[in-house]
Structures are given as C-alpha cells and as structure tokens.
C-alpha cells in the first residue's frame, strides 16, 4: 500500500462539454497538510467534491485509500466518506440543531454509541476547538469564526483519516483566522489525519501547509513546499503569491477589443 491516502490521476471534469479540469495529477500523503490553491472559479471546490464522490469525473480517477471513488456503489461511497470529514465554506451547520446536536449528528447517524458516550465525545470535540461552553447555543447565535470552529468539531467528530477544508479562512476576522489556522495544523497532527485545504488565502495557507498545489486553467500550474513557491519565478505563482493585480491572470474577463466595442454599439445586447 502506498503512503498516499488520496491520489488523483489524470483527472478531467467538466460541465456540458466545457472542461474545468484538464488532466490533473495530485497526491496527498498520509499525515500531511496539503493545500490546493488557485483563483476563484478554478475548480478547487469541485476537486473536493470529486474526492468525496459527490460528482463523477469525466476522465481519469480519484483513489481514496486505494479504492477508485467513482467506481463505488452508494454503499461503497458512504463507506469511504466515513473516513472523511469536511468543513464547508460557510460551516454548513444544521440550523435547526444546537451546537451540541450538530457535533453529535454524525455520531448519532452513523454509530450506535450510547448517549452518555456521545455526550462525552461531543464535549471533547468542542473542547478541542475551544467552544465547550457554547454547546447549548443555536448556530444563528454564533459568530462566523465560532460557526467555523463548530463545523470543524463536527468534521472531526468521527476521527476521520482525511479532513477536507473548503475555504476555511474565507470571511473571517484576523483573530478567528489565526485560531482556525492553528486548529487545522494541531488537529491534523493530534489525529494523525491528512488534511486537504482548498483556499486562496496565501499567508495562512503557507503557514500551515506541508505541500501546495497551484491550479490554473484546469491543470496543476505549480507545486512545491511553501518556501519553494515563495521563491518561485513562475509569473503566475509570483502574481498569486504576491497578490498583484495584473499579470498572467488578467484583470479583465476575456472580451472584445474595448475600442471596437464602444464604437460598435450593436455588438452589446
């Protein structure tokens, strides 16, 4: 068995003939924090969905624990997903359940643990994210950062082997961002899990990632450790890492020539 818990081989995926990914290869070694970076709309979140088996690739394959995800039937996929925890972009907490019930949800749904044990486990998980005192609150009563942390507690409820983070830093204040950043690293190491982070926040991601993939135009444009990438002279990586406005990633959406468009009114409808 290889040391790579998730492996993506020559993956292509697209909607209605328009390919979003054009032959992507990635490996995610056990115990590491691996980040997938790229601009908005480059299909990073879709990669997570492909790993989770929510959508099927057009070509190529995704292996999780050696099994090809899209060849599994429903039960097989559910079995694979039990090893995964996912933190959604906005937490995706169940708004009709309290914080406690949210974290208890996967345990209640997927295990036959007695209520007392679930209680202890939930409080442990909440303690790990520093929100044990908030267990009685409803998701609507939480701040964005707290909600993200509760969702994190829920994602690790069943001690998954793989934890996926979809934009874990998006929309957080700097303090919450730091807290979440710290948590991702410490939880990964404490649980011995593999973390996959999808993000476009360079500073935080580089702080905790062991390895980074850059996705652009449907392919892996660059990869390496954060240090390598900081030094990278590839124009795209340079633009992204240093947050420059214009560069290989154009400021303008592809359009007709500005002057001709202004003069020729008929073309805009």
């Amino acid at each position, binding site marked *: 068995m290889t040391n790579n818990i998730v492996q993506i081989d020559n993956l292509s995926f697209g909607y209605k003939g328009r390919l979003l990914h054009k032959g992507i290869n990635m490996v995610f070694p056990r115990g590491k924090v691996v980040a997938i970076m790229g601009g908005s709309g480059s299909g990073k979140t879709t990669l997570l969905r492909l790993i989770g088996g929510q959508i099927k690739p057009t070509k190529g394959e995704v292996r999780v624990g050696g099994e090809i995800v899209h060849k599994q039937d429903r039960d097989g996929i559910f079995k694979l997903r039990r090893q995964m925890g996912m933190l959604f972009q906005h937490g*995706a907490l169940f*708004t009709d359940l309290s914080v406690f019930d949210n974290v208890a*949800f996967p345990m209640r749904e*997927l295990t036959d643990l007695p209520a007392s044990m679930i209680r202890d486990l939930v409080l442990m998980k909440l303690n790990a994210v520093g929100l044990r005192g908030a267990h009685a609150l409803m998701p609507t009563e939480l701040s964005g950062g707290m909600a993200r942390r509760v969702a994190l507690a829920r994602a690790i409820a069943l001690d998954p082997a793989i934890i996926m983070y979809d934009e874990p830093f998006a929309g957080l204040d700097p303090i919450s961002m730091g807290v979440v950043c710290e948590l991702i690293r410490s939880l990964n190491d404490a649980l011995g899990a593999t973390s996959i982070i999808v993000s476009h926040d360079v500073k935080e991601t580089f702080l905790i990632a062991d390895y980074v993939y850059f996705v652009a135009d449907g392919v892996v444009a660059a990869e390496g450790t954060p240090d390598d990438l900081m030094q990278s002279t590839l124009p795209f990586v340079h633009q992204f890492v240093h947050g420059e406005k214009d560069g290989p990633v154009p400021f303008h959406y592809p359009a007709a020539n500005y002057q001709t468009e202004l003069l020729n009114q008929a073309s805009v409808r």
Partner: protein
Amino acid sequence: MIKSNLLIGITRILTGIGHRMIERIWRLGAGARLFFLTIIYSGESFKRFHLTLREIYFTGVMSLLIVIVSAFFVGMVLALQGYNTLQKYGSSEAIGVLVALSLVRELGPVVTALLFAGRAGTAITAEIGLMKTTEQLSAMEMMAVNPIARVIAPRFWAGVISMPILAALFSMVGILGGYLVAVPLIGVDDGAFWSQMQANVDFRLDIVNGVIKSLVFGVACTMIALFEGYDAPPTAEGVSRATTRTVVISSLTVLALDFVLTSFMIVI
C-alpha cells in the same frame, strides 16, 4: 422586412413555449424520481421515528390554529348562506346536512390542503431550499448520511399523516361552527339539525371518501413542497421563487385532483 420580423417573433414565442413545456416535463420527471426515492428510503427513516414526530409537530401541530379558526368561520358562513337559501323552500332543517356534506366531502379536504400549502408547504420549501443553499444537504451527504432518508422522508410522512388529521378537524370544527349559527342563533331545531345530518351523511361514502381525498392531497402537497425546496436554485432568489411556486402548484394540483377524485367517487 415586417413579414420576416413577424415570422421571427412567432418562432421566438413558439420556441419559448416549447422550452417551457420541456422544462415542465423535466421537472415532473425529477419530481417523480424524488417521490420514488423518498418511498425507497422511507424504511431507513422509520427506524428513527422521532424525526417524523418532530416534523409532524412542525407541519401538523403548527397548522392547527389556522385550520381551526378557518374551519370555524367557514362552518358559520355555510350555515348562514345555507339557511338563507333553504328557508325559501321551507326545508331549513336540512341545514345540518348541507353544512356537514359540504364540509366532509369538499371543503374539509380541499380548504385544509390549500391552507396546508400556504402554511406548512411554504415552510418546508423554504427550509429545504435554505438547507441546500447553505450546503447543509451537501454536508450531510459528505457525512455519509442520505439527505433523502434524513431530511425528505420524515417531512413527507409527517405531511401525509398530518393532512387527514387536519382535514377531519376542519370538518368537525366547521360543523360545530355551523351548529352554533344554525341552532342558537337562527333557531333551527337542535334535534333536526343532527338527525337530518346523521340520516344523510354516510360513513363510507362521505366520511371515508373525505379522508381518502385528504390523504391524496397530503401526498401531493408535501411532495410538491419538498421537491420545490430540493430543486430550488441555491440562491436567495431561487428559494423565494420556489416558495411561491409551491403555493401556486399545490393549489392548482389540489383543485384538479379534487375534480378527478370526486368524479371517481361519485361514479362508485
């Protein structure tokens, strides 16, 4: 030039209609698929029946007030209007029959279904649409929990169970409302009111058929609400549109189904 413009216009209208029809048929198919999946995964959700109980609370119990209050007024109006006409023919004693039959056969199931679509149906659509928008359904799926078994099926059965109960309550409360107007207010004989009713309302033909109707409406209204929520585009606008559609489609479906069911029941 004008002629070709006209032709283009007509073509555009026709293709528009065609697209819309295809869209409708597509949605019908998707709805039917969701219905079958709901039935298939119902077993899983029955193992945790408290989920369904919880939804009965939200759909049924929460609709009690509006159903009872409307039923009361509908019954009173029926008695007033009925008396006004019946007394011209000297048969004001038949007012009990009139009120009871109208309620048990038609108004009970139909008005309850319309109220249900407005009260519980919209709530279901909005809730599920919002769960989809905020990725709660996706999250569930990623946790290896089937959202159809966990979210859709309990709500479906709650609606199917609640509707006949609400309709029966509607009929009963409506009859009581009619009684209050007919007997103490207008002065129709108390005994005649009930005995005429009992002589002319048949348990199987009227009451059981009313319950069957409300069961069918329960399936239709709940399923429409669930599908609209489940299928809503994950945006605020999408959810609000889906909610509106729930009311419109449920109401039309209930009225059309009522005609179909009534024609079956009258022939039998």
